[in-house]
């Protein structure tokens, strides 16, 4: 058996000869067990992808790629398409990123660049980490009963005064809309951007900072022209991870987006995301509809895999450069 040839142990001295003692058998068995489980852990991802694909075969055969461009979701006629949901997923994630990128990078700079002493930044950093711990369903219920009533006047203000901008137009604004989902998603993903950007800034060589300052740049010019370009790969990968999280977030979307199967350019109108569609329809779905929902899940899987793999590759390249 190949396993017995694995390292550790000497063959020359008779007293140290490899014998099938119980200790050695356990040792080899343990090695094999951990190897098997490691391969198993690595295969879970593949299994999840394949299983989702298998479950959606019926819908894939029936609708093909047209599923992505069809905007009806009709259990009566059994015609399904996810164009409005793809649109909603992209728009809500985009709103979240639009807010979270500048805020996240700004806060990361505030926490790492010694604007204020450590004893102020440490508790702030701790509090930001706690945001990650808040369950999304709690953010959802808070959104329904606190944030929606609070923001309703603001939505009306936007609609009345800036209704000529298509994004804020389109009839009376609704409490459950694409914008509020984007806002809550921004709260959820900002800690991701902050923590990765922070660690990126912390590992940048100090010579970059001192060199730039010595050339006469101010602190902020150093940050904008030297540190941010140098740490760009870290920032980009944090943004990708945050995007993946925003696209896959279910409860906030299901509770706040309004679950309307429509494409509306106005972000003050209700919409739907892929996740909210699955969460709201799955309970009472028939066979073909379940398959269509699995297909929707597959679409989401592909989107999130692309984003996560890009993030992972950027992080890897970045780590290799560091060493």
């Amino acid at each position: 058996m190949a396993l017995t040839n694995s390292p550790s142990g000497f063959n020359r001295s008779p007293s140290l000869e490899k014998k099938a003692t119980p200790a050695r058998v356990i040792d080899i068995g343990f090695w094999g067990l951990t190897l098997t489980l490691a391969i198993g852990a690595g295969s879970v991802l593949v299994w999840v992808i394949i299983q989702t694909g298998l479950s959606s075969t019926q819908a894939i055969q029936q609708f093909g790629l047209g599923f992505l461009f069809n905007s009806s979701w009709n259990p009566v006629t059994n015609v399904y398409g996810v164009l409005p949901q793809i649109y909603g997923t992209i728009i809500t994630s985009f709103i979240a990123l639009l807010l979270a990128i500048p805020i996240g990078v700004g806060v990361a700079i505030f926490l790492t660049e010694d604007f204020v002493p450590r004893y102020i930044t440490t508790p702030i950093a701790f509090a930001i980490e706690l945001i990650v711990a808040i369950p999304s369903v709690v953010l959802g219920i808070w959104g329904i009963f606190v944030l929606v009533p609070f923001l309703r006047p603001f939505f009306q203000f936007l609609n009345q005064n800036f209704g000529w901008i298509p994004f804020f137009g389109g009839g009376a604004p609704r409490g459950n809309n694409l914008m509020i989902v984007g806002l809550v998603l921004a709260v959820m993903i900002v800690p991701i951007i902050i923590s990765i950007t922070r660690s990126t800034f912390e590992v940048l060589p100090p010579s970059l900072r001192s060199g730039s300052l010595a050339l006469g740049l101010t602190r902020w010019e150093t940050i904008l022209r030297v540190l941010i370009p140098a740490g760009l790969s870290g920032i980009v990968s944090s943004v990708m991870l945050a995007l993946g999280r925003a696209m896959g977030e279910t409860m906030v979307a299901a509770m706040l987006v309004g679950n309307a199967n429509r494409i509306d350019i106005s972000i003050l109108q209700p919409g739907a995301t892929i996740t909210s569609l699955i969460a709201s329809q799955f309970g009472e779905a028939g066979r073909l509809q379940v398959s269509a929902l699995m297909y929707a899940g597959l679409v989401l899987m592909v989107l999130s895999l692309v984003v996560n793999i890009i993030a992972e590759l950027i992080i890897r390249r970045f780590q290799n450069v560091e060493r």
Partner: protein
Amino acid sequence: MDIADKQPAPDGIEDLDLSKKAIPNYRRVLSVVLTFLTVIFTAAVLIPLAAVVYGVSIKGVNQLKFPTVFTELPPPPGLTEGGFGHAIIGTLMTLGIASVIAVPFGVLAAIYLAEFGKGTKIAQLVKFSCNVLTGVPAILCGLFAYSIVVIPMGNFSAFSGGVAIAVLMLPIIVRATEEALLLVPNEMRQAAMGIGATRFQMVANIVIPAALPALITGIVLALGRAAGEAAPLLFTAFNNNFWSHDPLQPVATLPVLIYFFSIIPYKASQELAWAAAMMLVAIVLIFSIAARFFSRQKSY
């Protein structure tokens, strides 16, 4: 100023002004504005946290009526009073099932990654795959468990919920355990091998005990993350309005209960949802603070 005074500039070049005044106004204004902006951004991040914690505590405390929340079932529509003891049990059941699957699996896999297969192609691939799995949306873990457990067994069950949560926890546990093991100094491994321990004895008697605090931290963090997830449970553990201890039957869980009760228009249900939300936030915060506590202890 001093330097400029002491070293006269060569002919044809004007004296350099190296004082702060030499920085043009727009550059100084830019600095002040940007610094101000970062302070505002930091406040903008902290305000929602404070608002959520405040909102949940205010609305939740009024509804938390001891001990009925633990001992009673939710009221039928139209009535008031009641509790969600069944959902607490359901949450413990699904988390327990998930831990039984994911903890040994993840810890042993991580032992290979950190101890035996460090740097090999297999280890790198497995790590890559686990990192990508961490980013897979939680609802897809639910769909996965639905198609491999719920469909073959024919009904929603606590067990299928546990499987969904286990898929969610597995990559977190693998990564945390691997990091915990890598923190153990190599000298300890060499010492163990030097006195004739097999690799199993070394791992079981030396490395694991040394890494235990960090290892527990990772598991507690994974549990905390899993405790708050509703999406993977929606179509696996589903929901149940009655007491259930059977792992093969659907059970209510706190996150799913919050979701269902907050979207129906009965006031009593919504109040229970707030109480459950407060409970859930408390549990999750206790988990993450407990994790910090464990991580401070060092046994080597």
